[in-house]
């Protein structure tokens, strides 16, 4: 076949920085790099786990009650010097969180309750500690026995108001939905909540059920685009405070976060490629030169000076496992992991402490560049961020979003040559 002019030309798609992975960490890295003025490509196979787990921003939910987050983190870093937080440091964790917060101005800001963890109700009727919460969930931190009415909907399987209410010693009510024959999804309901007439019907119906309750708890689907408008309108109608309760995936509050990042990044001129799977990295010695993206039947290459790998863990596709071992499929970096398959899990699954497999991940130096078990640097222009990092138990620590935000921010600063 004759050579065509754009063959060599295509090879020149060149960026300052390529971020691989479109979860919270990758998004945060892309934002940070863009603010520094880097020409950035962010590429992700999927939306990561933002729309699965993330409703609020956990930083370190495991801390004992009442401790200020800053103090808790300082102690934590001393106790766990290998933890990703120790590499970032308290000050930069704070900067990273501020940077995240700056993306969410009113009317949908995130906030802390007095710079400590707060307890929010869950869809299982339990309380769960978390740190930064969207304004729509603040009411949940103030629940008192008998003071809250929980609302569920017939045909919506992901939230059982009565069950939640029983656990929390309050009342629950399950409303029928007008004009729906089949089951409803959270995303469909969040859309309906933004339609005035639907919302007004719901508000009036709930008002009839209210006795002396001062609060009404909804599953977290009060609109994807204008949750505050929905919340305030309902409050006005019912004369009670309204709040959202995190529920099963997909997470509407997580999608709000994703959408906001996407909007911001595209507006700033970042090349945003969702749904593209990086099949291979092109390396030369200790340098990564580019990535190959396989979109059947075409393979496209993109080149950059620096790279951030933020591909997440097993669900995001950043780590994979066969029968014997855990591996990292894109850069083929060594994965720190239990010695053998038998050591992946505790004998007792409910042993009460974290399973060893959850600690698997990529080892890095202090600047988040990948190293092997001996501490030798593997790639000099690649930085690792997010939950793919080794030495954390984000599930038990309740530190997922905090690690994602802090390391995404730091990786981008390091990669852009601006550290400390």
């Amino acid at each position: 076949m004759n050579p065509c002019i754009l063959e060599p030309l295509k090879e020149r798609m060149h960026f300052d920085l390529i971020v691989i992975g479109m979860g919270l960490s990758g998004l945060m890295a892309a934002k940070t790099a863009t603010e520094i003025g880097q020409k950035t490509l962010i590429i992700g196979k999927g939306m990561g786990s933002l729309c699965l787990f993330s409703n609020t921003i956990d930083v370190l939910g495991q801390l004992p009650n009442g401790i200020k987050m800053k103090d808790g983190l300082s102690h934590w870093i001393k106790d766990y010097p290998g933890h990703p937080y120790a590499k970032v440091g308290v000050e930069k964790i704070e900067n990273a969180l501020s940077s995240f917060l700056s993306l969410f101005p009113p009317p949908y800001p995130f906030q802390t309750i007095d710079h400590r963890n707060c307890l929010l109700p869950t869809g299982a009727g339990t309380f769960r500690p978390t740190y930064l919460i969207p304004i729509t969930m603040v009411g949940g931190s103030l629940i008192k026995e008998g003071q809250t009415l929980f609302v569920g909907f017939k045909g919506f399987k992901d939230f059982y108001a009565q069950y939640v209410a029983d656990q929390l010693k309050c009342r629950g009510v399950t409303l029928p939905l007008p004009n729906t024959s089949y089951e409803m999804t959270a995303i469909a309901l969040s859309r309906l909540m933004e339609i005035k007439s639907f919302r007004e019907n719901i508000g009036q119906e709930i008002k009839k059920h209210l006795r002396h309750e001062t609060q009404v708890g909804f599953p977290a689907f009060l609109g994807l685009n204008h949750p505050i408008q929905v919340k305030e309108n309902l409050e006005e109608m019912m004369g009670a405070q309204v709040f959202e309760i995190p529920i099963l995936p997909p997470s509407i509050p997580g999608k709000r976060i994703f959408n906001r990042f996407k909007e911001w990044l595209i507006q700033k001129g970042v090349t945003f490629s969702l749904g593209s799977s990086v099949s291979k990295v092109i390396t030369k010695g200790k340098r990564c030169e580019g990535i190959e993206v396989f979109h059947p039947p075409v393979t496209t290459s993109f080149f950059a000076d620096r790279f951030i790998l933020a591909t997440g863990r097993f669900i995001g596709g950043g780590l994979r496992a066969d029968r014997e071992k855990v591996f990292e499929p894109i850069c083929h970096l060594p994965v720190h992991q239990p010695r053998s398959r038998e050591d992946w899990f505790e004998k007792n699954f409910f042993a009460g402490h974290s399973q060893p497999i959850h600690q698997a991940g990529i080892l890095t130096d202090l600047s988040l560049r990948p190293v092997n078990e001996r501490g030798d640097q593997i790639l000099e222009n690649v930085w690792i961020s997010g939950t793919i990092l080794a030495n954390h138990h984000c599930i038990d620590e309740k530190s997922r979003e905090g690690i994602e935000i802090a390391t995404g921010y730091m990786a981008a600063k390091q990669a852009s040559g601006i550290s400390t």
Partner: protein
Amino acid sequence: MKDGPMKKQSWPKKNVDVCIRCATCMAVCPVSRVTSKFPGPKQAGPGAERFRRMGEPSVDDWIDLCIGCHLCDMVCSSGVNISELNLLAKAKYLDEKGRPFRDWLLTHSYLYGWVGSFLSPFVNFLFRNSMIRWVGEAILKIDRRRKLPDYEPSTFRQWFKKHRSQVHQIKEGDHPPFKKKGKEGFEHHFMERKKVGYFYGCYMNTNEVDVGRATVQVLEVNGFEVILPLQKCCGIPMLGNGNFKGARKMACYNVPSLLKTIVSGSDIIFSSTSCGHMIKHEYSHLLSIPRADEVALHLFDIFEFLRNLKELNGLDTHFKELPLKAAYFAPCHLRALGIGLPALEILRLIPGLTLDNIEADCCGMGGTFGFKKEKYEISEEIGRDLAEVIDRLKPEIILSDCEGCRMQIRHLTGLKVSHPIQILRDALLPETKFTL
């Protein structure tokens, strides 16, 4: 081929078992968001696939409601090709149930488009007549609320033929067709220019000729000669209606013809993202057309092509000021190409042009989907979210690379909607004056 495509067997057609039921796809599906008649990609794709058996009748009569936007594929971290599963199931369902004449009519416009164009004043009059539309709905089940697109009095092919002869005349008088400003590197004489093939698509040929005109003009200003390989409908309307046989027939005509152009040393560009996505990504894997992967390697979206030129400092960026407030909507099939948003990147170089990106998931047109009586309301409801964003942005003009999106946005907002290449042309050519 060294950097050629990955081996096909490594990409399974049905990979349902890698679905982890995480429901991320449910967060983006435009159809299940507005109607409970469609259970959403998780259930319709990998969920229902486990119950589908060869030789057994289909049980999922809602499968026809999948709009084919590919958004679910794009967000899936496990890499399940959900929309492909849906399409295969839809084809089976429609094979069993039979297709109405309406579907044949909607997917074969390439056969009668020239008649529409030839008799355009008459045809357009009929299309606007409410009585005719009422009859169309009663007999054909084409929703009467949906405005049918106007035919243009002469086709793009006719314009191109005339244009070519004019350009050649100028050449004989030794004037380059367009004066190249600045940078050297491109030939002034037409015959020595680098050739680039254009897959223009049937809709543009008969209904939106100016899009093709603008594409040709922009490429010529940038030093290319445009050639038109022999082509038929890309087949996406048929594929979208589950007619694999018909789509394959189209593909089998187009691939050898495009390949001929490619082998002679030209790349192919397209201005309709749906046609482009079809040829680039569906021909090879889904339809198993021989050598379609070679075509795919040399096929580019027009703005992707221009962005590549820019990377090589070969793009003419002598834009004049265009004081205009525009909003851009990226079609689903453009996003599914995985090339980012090149139109947005290029248009941002135009001074004076304010350009907002419309943050919405899908326009709801879905090609022929939005014409059908039983789907019209779903289509309109999906589009309502997009229209609401547009309403907030208050643009003077809306830009989108797909004819379906343009049709739907016009229908829902009544605003002027263009292809981004038309704006680029307006900013590039001295002789065109932009009018709203």
